[in-house]
């Protein structure tokens, strides 16, 4: 990785890393009586060990100008590895928390391993760790290829990738220590949030500058979606995390939002995190890896326009459907509900566009497990966007809210859509990125596919059953007009579903481990492809006119 950096780049990198190290030392010193101190040590180690890594290779030969006529793939390779590491961690934590619901003794009577602390390590681990790294890695890949331009920076792609991972590490280690803002999917505390702002703005600038040097006249759809993902996540993150720390030496902070405004801001954030992190970003993946793998043109450019603007516009209004039948004013709930329903057609237009793109390639869907991953992802995308709009309707929500149905819905999206499109993309990306002939074992891709399908179906069906049963038990009245069941009765009824859900999750985790092994062996053991198409920005131009170093 350091070999690709010039001496100037190396110096800049060291300055940044030493700054991170010093901030870590300061945090460790002022926060020595607080979990903030532990985080200071982590930041110190993070900055220090990377600095040592750079210094070890500091005097190695400088790269030639020639590198600038190639795509910048090192950060993408690291991003793929991090994606897989976080997938296994995050999914393992998911299986553990799921098992705790069936067998509470699995908390082992310790504070750090209680359900309340483990649960956000699962959500952060899979959404930000697994999903976030996959998005960053693929966005670097897609934007370069579809713009025929090298990333507009030598150090900044590394800064974005590793900085983002530092955020994830601070978030997850904080949860184990009980550090949390108590905002769902935004649990990380103020200092981690501030750091993420710096990282994300760098990401935004890097992406824009890369697009600006594109050699294609038009910006490809995938890049629209990556751009929407980057811009909106920045806005959401900043607004929802506005908070005042109780002191600079402590991790604890209080949000500046209060009461029902706090709820509304939180779910405006929460829902649009689903929209722009888990939907827009992964649609970007779909728009690149689907046509590449299927070797088919996108079914309809016009449909892409309709769904892109529909999704970006309507999602923004829909967050209040998370707060039906609460203290939130009735009109806000209704508004969110109507926009959620109007959102359905643009969402389905995306799913339809993906599935119709497969016309003429269905034999490949049958034969190629990788393309089947992408196909199933599009099906689950359509399914869970329909389910989302349906559950946003108030009377339906009256049954589904607070039940496992919500959990099932989220996992139909997270497993069936997000993880499937990610693995489909990775299996397409990895051989091309490492210039390998093929994946190490197509049979293992097949095994992973069926483990993932079985896991997802078991998970989602058990949660649908459990959720609807729960909802019905909570609203069943006796002839005398009193509740027929206590909450405890509903928990007893959930028990078999909780076991089934943990089992489904376990299958999905096993699939991810198979994927990690297969990808590792592809890099290690598969011979480099001979010849093939040149994968360079623009072979027609002389190297020194292609691009200039950014840093």
């Amino acid at each position, binding site marked *: 990785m350091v070999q690709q950096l010039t001496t100037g780049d190396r110096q800049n990198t060291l300055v940044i890393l030493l700054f991170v190290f010093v901030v870590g030392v300061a945090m460790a010193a002022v926060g020595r009586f607080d979990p903030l101190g532990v985080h200071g040590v982590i930041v110190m180690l993070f900055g220090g060990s990377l600095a040592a890594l750079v210094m070890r290779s500091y005097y190695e030969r400088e790269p030639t100008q020639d590198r600038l006529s190639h795509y910048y793939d090192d950060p993408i390779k690291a991003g793929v590895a991090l994606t897989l590491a976080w997938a296994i961690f995050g999914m393992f934590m998911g299986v553990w928390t799921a098992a705790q619901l069936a067998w509470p003794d699995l908390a082992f009577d310790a504070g750090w391993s209680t359900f309340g602390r483990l649960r956000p390590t699962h959500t952060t681990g899979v959404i930000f760790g697994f999903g976030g790294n996959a998005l960053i890695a693929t966005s670097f890949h897609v934007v370069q290829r579809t713009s025929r331009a090298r990333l507009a920076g030598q150090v900044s792609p590394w800064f974005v990738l590793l900085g983002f991972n530092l955020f994830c590490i601070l978030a997850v280690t904080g949860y184990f220590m009980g550090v949390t803002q108590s905002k769902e999917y935004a649990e990380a505390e103020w200092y981690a949030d501030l750091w993420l702002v710096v990282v994300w703005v760098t990401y935004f600038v890097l992406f824009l500058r890369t697009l600006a040097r594109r050699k294609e*006249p038009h910006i*490809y759809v995938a890049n629209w979606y990556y751009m929407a993902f980057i811009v909106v996540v920045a806005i959401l993150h900043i607004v929802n995390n506005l908070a005042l720390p109780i002191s600079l030496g402590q991790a604890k902070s209080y949000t500046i939002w209060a009461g029902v405004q706090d709820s509304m801001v939180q779910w405006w954030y929460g829902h649009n995190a689903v929209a722009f992190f888990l939907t827009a970003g992964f649609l970007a993946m779909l728009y690149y890896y689907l046509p590449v793998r299927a070797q088919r043109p996108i079914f309809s450019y016009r*449909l892409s326009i309709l769904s892109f603007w529909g999704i970006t516009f309507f999602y923004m209004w829909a967050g209040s459907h998370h707060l039906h039948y609460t203290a939130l004013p*009735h009109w806000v709930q209704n508004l969110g509900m*109507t926009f959620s329903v109007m959102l359905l057609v643009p969402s389905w237009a995306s799913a339809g566009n993906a599935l119709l793109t497969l016309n003429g390639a269905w034999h490949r869907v049958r034969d190629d497990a990788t393309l089947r991953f992408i196909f199933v992802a599009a099906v689950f995308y359509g399914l869970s966007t329909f389910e989302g709009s349906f559950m946003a309707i108030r009377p339906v929500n009256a049954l589904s809210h607070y039940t496992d149905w919500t959990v099932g819905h989220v996992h139909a999206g997270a497993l069936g859509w997000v993880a499937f499109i990610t693995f489909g993309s990775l299996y397409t990306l990895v051989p091309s990125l490492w210039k390998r002939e093929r994946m190490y074992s197509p049979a293992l891709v097949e095994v992973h596919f069926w483990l993932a399908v079985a896991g997802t179906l078991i998970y989602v069906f058990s949660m649908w059953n459990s959720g609807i049963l729960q909802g019905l038990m909570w609203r069943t009245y*006796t002839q005398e007009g009193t509740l027929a*069941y*206590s909450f405890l009765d509903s928990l007893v009824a959930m028990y078999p579903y909780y076991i089934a859900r943990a089992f489904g999750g376990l299958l999905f985790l096993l699939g991810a481990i198979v994927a990690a092994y297969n990808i590792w062996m592809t890099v290690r053991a598969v011979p480099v492809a001979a010849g093939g198409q040149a994968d360079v920005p623009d072979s027609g131009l002389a190297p020194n006119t292609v691009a200039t170093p950014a840093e």
Partner: protein
Amino acid sequence: MAVEERDPVSGQKTTGHEWNGIKELDTAVPRGVLIFLVVTHVWAVLWWLLMPTWPLVTTYTKGILGIDQRQTVERELVTAQAERASWVKAIETESYEQIQSNEDLMKVVRSTGRQLFGDNCAACHGADGNGRANYPDLTDDDWLWGGEVEQIAETMRLGINSRHQNTRVAQMPAFGRDAMLDRAQVANVATYVQSLSNPAVSTPQNVAQIQAGREVFLTTCAACHGEDGKGNREVGAPNLTDPHWVYGGDLQTLIDTIHGGRQGHMPTWDERLTPAEIKILALYVNSLGDVKP
């Protein structure tokens, strides 16, 4: 740029752009999508007209139907109360004996009581009222504060060592920790107490110890638990001669109890439950006690 390029599979024209080998077709938006789009939008506009939806500067559009969730829920609460009014009134006003002799009301007690017990009592006493370590079994006939319906209702209303100003108070002092008894005395009295419910404990080797423990018991413990160890429901002192134990009847637990004392806690349900609910639960818990001796 091949503007007129056609896709051989679909016969559609491409848009003429290409990115890294990816092309797009210029297929028109399918009619079904447009129709469906119009349907959802018409539905949304209708909803906007009928229901409160759009914010204005200081108020919001109220909608033609004039529906408001607050009024809806208030109305539903009144309806729900009206549905229950017949039996709630009876349970509030009638005596326990009258309720117990009325099979219709006892049916309500059994179904409603089970659900109330599950939501309020089961977390400590267990779903079936069987209790567990540190939480009394409610299905046996051994009661700390009395098992009559009135006594159970009073225990629920006041709680034990609770925040209620008239709470029932039960403090077993920490005889060992607070140095009222020395280690040997604690062990002796524990052995004696164990022998009250389990004569098999007594062996020729420890007769003297049990006798010494009895001396301590009569001077130190009998004030609450009685000279015969049968307890006193006026002060919540348990009967030590039966096989039922809240904290455990083995020797080590008895030593721990005498050494460190016990201050069990039961919350007051006075403000959390209505008087009718407390009556139902008292009758329900009392009926649990019939299950076993």
